[in-house]
């Protein structure tokens, strides 16, 4: 009896295992509300095609991908990465090159979404946010964010130089279009840090994207820089947080395939699936991040569109994150930020 059971188990395992191994991919995301929206729009529908999706959360650590690729033990098949990491990882040979003939027509996507190793997942924005219940007059510019007389109280900003130096320059009167030009000069960086020093005593710093809505709801801060999707997610839970889109910095996240994954074909299929207008529209309905496939916009109603960073009204006075600038200057600026913070 025991033997026959064991034998049966063996036979079953023998049939099931190879099938199981072929039809499973690991998709790595940034967790939170974004992961839930991806699950609904991408993972669950994709599993209908017979490939199981194992979601894994990470915090953008490129070191993990580098270690996997260097030791040739790649267990991640599709990874969502931030924009500076796409070009860098591509240059350093961490990612597979994408075959667009298997994914879709390049012309369907917004230009920034199409790169050699990564394709845009969505457009998101770092914006100014505040609690509509607590703040009656709306702050409209970064100068307002810096104005502690008009809006007394603490402000929350992301711990680090990225985005903050841009915001500081805009608060100092630099037009969004000129921000990176000014920032490229020595005087420009000087100016940005000087402006940050002005606000320093009033800043409460955040580390994780989930913190700004918490700070705002708890009343710890009157305004915060925040990822627009996190604000949207809080509002879906009944909060009344508001966004000022002027001077927001929009950017893309990308799908990449770590070099040497054994499941490359399934990974490409997944990326193609998640780049369709239908799935992207479904994603945008679940979280206020803009689709990268232009055809998805037609499938969204006006209410959803109004909350996306890509809608004309919201992107009118926004700034596109400059990947090249940060790839070149990021390390030095972050070090300078650490030095500045210690003073």
């Amino acid at each position, binding site marked *: 009896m025991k033997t026959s059971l064991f034998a049966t188990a063996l036979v079953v395992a023998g049939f099931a295992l190879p099938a199981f191994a072929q039809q499973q991919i690991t998709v790595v995301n940034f967790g939170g509300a974004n992961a839930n929206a991806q699950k609904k729009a991408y993972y669950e529908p994709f599993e209908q095609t017979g490939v199981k999706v194992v979601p894994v959360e990470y915090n953008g650590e*490129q070191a993990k991908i580098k270690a996997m690729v260097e030791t040739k033990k790649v267990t991640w098949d599709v990874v969502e990465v931030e924009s500076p990491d796409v070009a860098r990882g*591509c240059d350093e040979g961490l990612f597979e090159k994408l075959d667009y003939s298997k994914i879709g027509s390049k012309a369907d996507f917004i230009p920034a979404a199409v790169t050699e190793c990564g394709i845009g997942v969505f457009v998101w924005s770092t914006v100014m946010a505040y609690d509509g219940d607590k703040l009656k007059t709306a702050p409209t510019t970064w100068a307002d964010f810096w104005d502690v007389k008009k809006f007394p109280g603490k402000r929350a900003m992301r711990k680090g130089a990225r985005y903050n130096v841009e915001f500081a320059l805009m608060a100092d009167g630099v037009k969004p279009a000129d921000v990176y030009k000014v920032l490229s000069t020595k005087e420009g960086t000087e100016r940005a840090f000087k402006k940050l020093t002005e606000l320093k005593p009033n*800043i409460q710093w955040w580390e994780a994207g989930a913190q700004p809505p918490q700070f705002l709801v708890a009343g710890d801060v009157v305004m915060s820089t925040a990822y627009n999707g996190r604000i949207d997610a809080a509002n879906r839970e009944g909060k009344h947080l508001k966004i000022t889109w002027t001077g927001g910095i929009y950017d893309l996240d990308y799908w990449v395939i770590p070099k040497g994954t054994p499941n490359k074909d399934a990974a490409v299929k997944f990326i193609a699936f998640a780049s369709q207008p239908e799935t992207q529209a479904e994603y945008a309905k679940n979280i206020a991040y803009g689709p990268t496939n232009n055809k998805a916009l037609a499938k969204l109603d006006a209410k959803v569109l109004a909350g996306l960073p890509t809608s004309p009204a919201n992107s009118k006075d926004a700034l596109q994150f400059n990947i090249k600038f940060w790839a070149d200057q990021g390390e030095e600026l972050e070090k300078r930020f650490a030095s500045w913070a210690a003073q």
Partner: protein
Amino acid sequence: MNTAAIAAPGIANARALQRSLAQAERRRKLRGISLTLPLLVFLLLTFLTPIAVLLKRAIENPEVATALPRTVAALQAWDRRDVPPDGAFAALAADLGALPDRADAGNLARRLNSEVSGARSLVMNAYKALPLEGAGSAADVKARLLDADPRWNEPKFWQAIAKNGARWTPDYLLASVDLRRDAAGNVERMAADQRAFGRILVRTFGISAAVTLWCLLLGYPLAYWLSTLSARRANVLMILVLVPFWTSILVRVAAWIVLLQSAGLVNRSLMGLGLIEQPLALLFNRTGVIVAMVHILLPFMILPLYSVMKSVPPTYLRAAVSLGSSPLAAFFRVYVPQTYPGIGAGALLVFILSIGYYVTPALLGGPDDQMLSYYVAQYANVTVNWGMACALGAVLLAATLVLYAVYRRIVRAELSLG
């Protein structure tokens, strides 16, 4: 003659005995070693090798030497001041053209960019402009490279290449103590706006010292009280000490956020009691970091203290008092000195654990509360500059070893937990 005849077998016997004894001894030793062998191998693989690799990475500098051998040779005669000779441009184009894979160019670009900002795009632009068809002479190559990116006319990029021609570099270690080498290779201080790690190191030690002190102040009376209780009651209370010890650090950090935020329990009660008007800033600053770290590390102080205190006979204290000492003097002059090993072990444990702290300051502190390991993580994960991450790790390791040596000097004993 007769005696010799009798003695000879005796000596032979003694030798044989000696031999077999030695053999047995060797066997015993071998068995002992073979029993500890798995542990030794385990330690070697999981502890010593990674540390060796880390130290190696902190001084390793293969990128430029491997990717640009001709350029480095061509730059040897250069005075490192003005734009290098045309030959260097030709050598650079030849080197970049000979790279087997784009990843090699990417690694070179990353390495040079951490030396001079902007080198990343400069190198990649040149790499993508290759091959330079029809460029015959060195002057042609120079013109074409300058077409691709005029920044090749700036000596600072060439200086970075010339400086990093060797396979080993002290640069990462120098940078982790705010020093750098100038173009000519002389060590100098970093530019003021790039100086950070010296202060961060001081801050790391400052926070750790504060945490250790608070742990000692809070832990000592508690451990003393526990050691005077009956075994049963002491066990029950010990569980209370240990329960937080077994709870995830993240959970405890989150709990402190709930307690300490401006509308949190602590601020509300203080305001309700009329002690303060405005909520105190207890979070996202040094206070929050120290409060949470003391809470997390307190058991590491209490446990060694308790085990040492348990072994101190209460009769000594009674004897001192019966001989006329005041109770307070007896406590400080008779009891406390006997607990020095516990204080030493507890303080050392807490201090060494503190200097490696990462997640608590990251979540509860501002940017000027971050400790060295935060920057190790940043270099490892965000900027992917592993040389720098390893150098900072090496500094932490060195600091820990120095501390342990100082501890041994002071206490004149091995670390013991009682």
